[in-house]
């Protein structure tokens, strides 16, 4: 209940994702989106900071509070598709931040698995605001568990990252390491290699990881190939391969897949990456496939003066909105 009724400035009020109502998992039902923060960044070997990204996403998402304003119709200016804000408001819940353990991965991974499982079990879509990319590994496990319990099949995985994250273990960080996200999904047999798609790798990657990717029946589409082929073709292939013999696909996005000129707030900026508008174009296309969960990771709002600028968090918020909006449209919820 707001302290006062009536209009408030968009910078005012309780800070939730796009101003959506707060809620708990038990309130979720099929077609809904459970947005939750994972302020965890201990698996990152470089600068600490992604732990404050969920808060940064929410703060910046105040620009998009019109998405959950009451009784408004919005127009996406390129497509001229309309969005009924009452429907969005009914279908999105901000579940708050998970209880994070920075010192005990067993507890952390269990929390992540259970959260993804509980949301997916209710037919809703888990949307995780990371946090390190490594949180994606237990989230995919949780989704798979929910699928199996409901008698459905396997889960595919599409990863947007400037790297492959196929490392075995880090000499310092050991097994709990951001660079091993995809490797853990393979080693634990959470995702079959043929259902794993890597999009956006660029620059230098460790030879051992590259050779592994070539050896496996996985699909690697580099940033250069995205530029050559175009997003629609790339996403079409990615969905086809990731969903083959699978009931659902999890999308893991490391924000460093974008060129550092567009999003500098990451510990691993690259300058041969994708454009922000490439990701905006990709999200509704992904929403048209069987995507059952999504994680947005790797943003470090504390880095550089760019933390004032908020390009990364705004970009991430817009990506998620474009995904959610299209999902709702396809479900026929906009009358």
């Amino acid at each position, binding site marked *: 209940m707001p302290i006062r009724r009536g209009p408030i*400035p968009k910078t005012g009020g309780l800070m939730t994702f796009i101003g959506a109502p707060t809620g708990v998992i038990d309130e979720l039902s099929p077609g809904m989106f459970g947005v939750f923060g994972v302020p965890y960044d201990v698996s990152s070997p470089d600068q600490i900071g992604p732990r404050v990204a969920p808060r940064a996403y929410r703060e910046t998402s*105040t620009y998009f509070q019109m998405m959950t304003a009451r009784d*408004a*119709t919005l127009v996406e200016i390129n497509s001229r598709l309309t969005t009924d804000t009452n429907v969005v408001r009914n279908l999105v819940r901000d579940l708050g931040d998970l209880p994070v353990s920075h010192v005990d991965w067993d507890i952390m991974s269990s929390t992540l698995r259970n959260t993804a499982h509980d949301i997916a079990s209710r037919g809703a879509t888990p949307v995780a605001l990371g946090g390190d990319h490594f949180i994606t590994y237990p989230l995919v496990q949780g989704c798979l568990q929910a699928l199996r319990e409901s008698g459905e099949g396997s889960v595919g995985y599409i990863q947007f990252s400037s790297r492959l994250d196929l490392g075995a273990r880090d000499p310092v960080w050991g097994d709990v390491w951001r660079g091993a996200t995809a490797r853990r999904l393979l080693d634990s047999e959470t995702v079959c290699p043929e259902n794993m798609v890597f999009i956006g790798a660029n620059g230098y990657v460790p030879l051992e990881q590259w050779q592994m990717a070539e050896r496996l029946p996985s699909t690697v589409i580099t940033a250069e190939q995205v530029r050559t082929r175009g997003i629609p073709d790339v996403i079409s292939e990615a969905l086809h391969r990731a969903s083959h013999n699978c009931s659902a696909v999890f999308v893991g996005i490391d924000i460093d897949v974008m060129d550092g000129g567009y999003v500098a707030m990451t510990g691993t900026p690259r300058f041969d990456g994708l454009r*922000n508008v490439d990701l905006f174009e990709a999200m509704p296309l992904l929403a048209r496939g069987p995507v059952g969960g999504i994680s947005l990771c790797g943003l470090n709002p504390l880095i550089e003066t760019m933390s004032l600028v908020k*390009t990364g968090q705004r970009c991430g918020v817009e990506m998620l909105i474009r995904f959610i909006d299209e999902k709702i449209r396809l479900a026929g919820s906009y009358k």
Partner: protein
Amino acid sequence: MSDQARQLEDIGASTFLGSPHVALDKVERGMVVIGGAPHDSTHTSRFGTRMGPRGIRDGSLPLAQRIRDSGPDGILDLASGDRLTLPDSNRLVDVGDYNVYPSDVMKSTEGIAGGVEEVVKRGGFSVCLGGDHYVGYPSCLGYTRAVTELSPRPKIGYIHIDGHLDFRDDTPVWGKYNHGTNARRISELDLVSPSNMVWIGIQGWSDEEPVSAIDSNNGLIFTAADVLRIGPEEVARQAGERASAGCDFIYMSVDIDFIDTGFFPATGSVVNDAITPDIMAAILRILSGYPIGAMDFVEVSPRIDPSGRSMIMSTDLLLAHVAPRIFNITPSP
């Protein structure tokens, strides 16, 4: 000017490009006249654009230094190969900042409009530095008041370069006069022709009503995606043709959040549209060939960009449009 001021960019009065600071009554026909509108009380999110005029002026001083150093040879535009030299009689002046009143929007409106009106009546080309984008309305208002002395019943086109339409009629908190309604208020001005209004660079979502209103006015919208697909030069040409069709003059309003914030960080409203500064410069350069009689350049918020690059960039962007009015230009051989 002291000898030191001739040598060092950080000494002396901070005027745009080190131009003479003059009173309004010293403005002469053909001059480009810089006037600041340090107003941001109608910005709906992150304040700070009140520092815009000062920031843009400071950011122009490194180039002013290079121009002074270049002497009679002038400076070379490496993109075009053109040589720019200063004319014998100065064509650029800075009148300082117009009167603004943070607690009284209408009083600020009249303060800015009155200054621009005076500049235009004297034959100057007004460049109003914001400030949040609301200042585009009083700047255009002053322009329309002045041009009635230049033409009996002029018709004015409008070009709006921005990441946003700014065409809401009203907002629940800020009312009818803020940086999201400025273009709507301009469309209601007597001399402005709504069907000659053109938007360049719009991205993201808008309320439905403003889009419908522009469509029913037969206005023209180029989205940021259109600019990337069609190309900045062609978009600028089509925009110039539409805005000038049947019109005597064009007013141009430039919000720097047309540019992707990754490349121009100093602004309150963050935009991710992959529009780079060179795209904006190309558009502004092409539009200098159309009958634009006054402009504003708004939403620069210097404190958000401690690196200062956005303010330095602002000079390049402004010169992309006004250089032909300030310099003698010798085309590339």
